[in-house]
C-alpha cells in the first residue's frame, strides 16, 4: 500500500540513533536488572552490621557465613531451575537427608565413600525422576507429588537408620576434605558452591537447552506448539533438583561427619523463599540463579547478624520475619521505580 515509501523515510533516522540507543539500553539494563535492588539491600545490611559489630567484617566471620549458606545454596539452584520450569519441590529437605543416609549406610557396609556418594546422588536423581514421572505422565501437580515424596523419603531415612544418626567419623580424610578442607584460604565447600552457581547461571542464561526451561515455564502450551517436548523439560528439571539435593547431602555428610535422618525438616520453605526473594515466580517462567543466591545470602546474613548481636532468641523470629518482609517490600519498590 501507499505507506511503504513513507515507512522507508522513517527507517533512516531510526537506524542512525540505534547504535547510541543500544549502548544506552545496556546501561539501563544493568539498572533495570532485578538483582540490583537485592544487592543494594544486602549492602545496606553489611554496612549497618559493620558499624554494629566490629567482628562482622572479618574474614573469619565472612567465611563462616558463607559456609553456612553454601550447601543450602546448591539446593536453591536446583529449586530455582525447577521453579522457572513451572514446578515446585517440597521434598528437598528429606531428599537431602536421604542422600546422607544412603551414602552413610553404604559406607558403613564397606563401600568406599566415593562410590557410596555417587550411588546416593544417583538414588536422589531417581527419586526426582519418579516425581517427574508422576507429574508429566500421570499428570499430578508438583506440590502434591513432592509432598508425598517428602513424607516417603523421610520415612526411608528413619527406616534406614532406626531414627538414629549414623556416626561416620571413620570417613577417610580425603573424603572429609570436601566438607572440611580448604584450597588456599578458601573452603572447598565454597568452591563447589561457586562452581555450581557459575555453571548453572551461565547455562540458564546462555545455553539453548536451558532456555527451553524458561519457555516451558512461561507458557507450556506455546512451548509445546513450537515443538519443545515440555514434559521432557519438566522431567529433567525435577530430576536435576533432586540430584542437586543429593550433592548437597553428600557435602553435609562430609562436613559434619555424620548422617542425620532428621536433617532438613522445614528446609523447603527457606529454599523456596530464597528463590522467590531473588525474583523467581511461583507460576514459572522467571527467575535467575544470581537472584536466588542473593536471596540465600540475605536470609543467611540476617540470621548470622542476629546471632552476632546476641539478640534475645525470643525476639529473633520477630526481627527476622520483619526484615524479610521489609526487604522484599523495598526490593519490590526499587524494581517498580526502575521500570
Amino acid at each position, binding site marked *: 500500500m501507499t505507506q511503504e515509501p513513507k515507512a522507508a523515510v522513517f527507517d533512516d533516522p531510526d537506524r542512525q540513533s540505534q547504535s547510541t540507543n543500544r549502548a544506552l539500553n545496556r546501561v539501563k539494563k544493568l539498572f533495570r536488572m532485578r538483582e540490583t535492588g537485592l544487592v543494594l539491600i544486602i549492602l545496606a545490611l553489611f554496612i549497618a552490621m559493620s558499624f554494629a559489630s566490629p*567482628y562482622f567484617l572479618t574474614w573469619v566471620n565472612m567465611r563462616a557465613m558463607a559456609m553456612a549458606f553454601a550447601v543450602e545454596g546448591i539446593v536453591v539452584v536446583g529449586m530455582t531451575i525447577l521453579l522457572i520450569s513451572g514446578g515446585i519441590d517440597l521434598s528437598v529437605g528429606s531428599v537431602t537427608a536421604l542422600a546422607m543416609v544412603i551414602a552413610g549406610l553404604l559406607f558403613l557396609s564397606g563401600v568406599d565413600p566415593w562410590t557410596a556418594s555417587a550411588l546416593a546422588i544417583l538414588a536422589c536423581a531417581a527419586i526426582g525422576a519418579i516425581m517427574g514421572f508422576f507429574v508429566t505422565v500421570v499428570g499430578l501437580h508438583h506440590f502434591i507429588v513432592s509432598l508425598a515424596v517428602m513424607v516417603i523419603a523421610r520415612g526411608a531415612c528413619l527406616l534406614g537408620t532406626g531414627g*538414629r*544418626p549414623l556416626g561416620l*567419623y571413620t570417613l577417610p580424610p580425603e573424603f572429609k576434605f570436601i566438607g572440611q578442607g580448604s584450597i588456599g584460604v578458601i573452603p572447598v565447600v565454597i568452591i563447589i558452591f561457586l562452581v555450581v552457581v557459575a555453571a548453572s547461571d551461565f547455562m540458564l542464561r546462555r545455553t539453548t537447552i536451558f532456555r527451553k526451561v524458561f519457555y516451558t515455564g512461561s507458557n507450556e502450551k506455546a512451548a509445546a506448539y513450537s515443538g519443545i517436548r515440555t514434559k521432557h523439560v519438566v522431567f529433567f528439571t525435577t530430576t536435576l533438583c533432586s540430584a542437586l539435593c543429593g550433592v548437597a547431602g553428600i557435602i553435609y555428610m562430609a562436613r559434619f561427619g555424620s548422617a542425620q535422618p532428621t536433617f532438613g525438616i522445614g528446609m523447603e520453605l527457606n529454599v523456596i523463599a530464597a528463590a522467590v526473594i531473588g525474583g523467581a515466580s511461583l507460576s514459572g517462567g522467571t527467575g535467575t540463579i544470581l537472584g536466588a543466591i542473593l536471596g540465600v545470602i540475605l536470609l*543467611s546474613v540476617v540470621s548470622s547478624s542476629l546471632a*552476632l548481636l546476641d539478640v534475645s532468641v525470643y525476639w529473633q523470629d520477630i526481627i527476622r520475619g520483619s526484615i524479610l518482609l521489609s526487604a522484599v517490600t523495598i526490593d519490590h519498590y526499587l524494581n517498580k521505580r526502575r521500570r
Partner: protein
Amino acid sequence: PSAASAQSKFQCEPGETYIMNVMVSAHPYWVPVYQGFKQAAEAMGCETVFSGTPDYDITKQIASFEQDLVKQPAGILLHPMQSDPFIEPIDRAIDGGVEVVTFAADSPNSKRTAYITSDNLAEAKFAAEEIVKQIGDSAEYAVLENPGQSNHDLRVTALLSYMEEHYPNMKLVGRQASNQDSNAAYRATASMLQANPNLGALWIPEAGSAEGAVAAVLEAKADVLIMHADVTPTTLEHIKAGNIHMALNPNQGMQGFMGFVSLFMAAHSDMFDPFNDYKVSGFNPVQIPYVDNGFSVITKDNADSFDLNAYMEGRDPS
C-alpha cells in the same frame, strides 16, 4: 516357669498388654526407653506395644492415645507432649480402668499414678559445676537452645540460674537458638565465636546442635569447652577425639524399666494395702509422685558403652 508364675503376683495374665505412647515416635531417644520397658515386661510375662504419632502434633498424639484406649490395655506409659491437654484423656483412661504413668514429661494435674523422669536440674547443676571446674569461676560461657521444648528449656534456664546464683563472675555472652538444626547451630556458634573471642565454654541441651557447634569450633580453631546433653554417634566420636569435653545422657533404660514397673504395680494395686485413705477416697494406692532415673556422664573413657547402634544389634526395636 509357668508354675512359678502362677505363684508370683509380679506376673501378667496371658495377653495382658502394656503400651508405651510417645510423640515424634521415630526419635531415637525412645529406643533405649522402650528396650527397658520391654525387658521389664518380658521378665513379668507381659505383652508390650510401642505406639504414638510420628508427628510433633498434639492432636495426633491425643488421637493415638485414645485409639490405644480402644484396645483396653492394662496400662499406658505416656510421654505427654503437653501437660494440660492430656489431663482429660488421662483421667478418662484411669476412670475407664487403664492405668497411666508418665515419663520424661508430666501431666501433674491429671490422675496419673507415677512420673518417671531425668532430673534436668541435676543435669544442669552438674554441667555448671563441671564448666567452672574446667575453666574457672570467672570466665565467659554461652548456650545454644531450642525455645519451646520444655526439657531443653529447663536444661538451659536451670544452668543459667545456677551460675548466676553460685558463680556471679561467670559471664553469659551468648544465648542462641539452634532448634536442633546442625547447620543453624553451626551458624550461631560461628557468630558467637566471632563476637566473643574469649568464650570459654558452651552448653548445649541436645546432641544434634552439638554436631554443628563442634564443626564451627574446630573450624575457628577456638579453645572452647563443649558440653551437651544426650548423645549421637558423631558426638561420641568427638568426645573420644577430645573435641567435646563431656556429654550428660539421661538413663533412658532405667526410665523405661521403672516406667513399666510402676505401671504394672498401678495395674495390680490389689497386692498393696498402704497406710492411708485410698479406700475411702478412691484413688490408686500406688502413687509415686516422682522417680529420678538418673543420668550418665560420658567422657573419653566410657564413650564406647554409649553406641546405640552397637547396643541395638540383635535387639528388636518394636
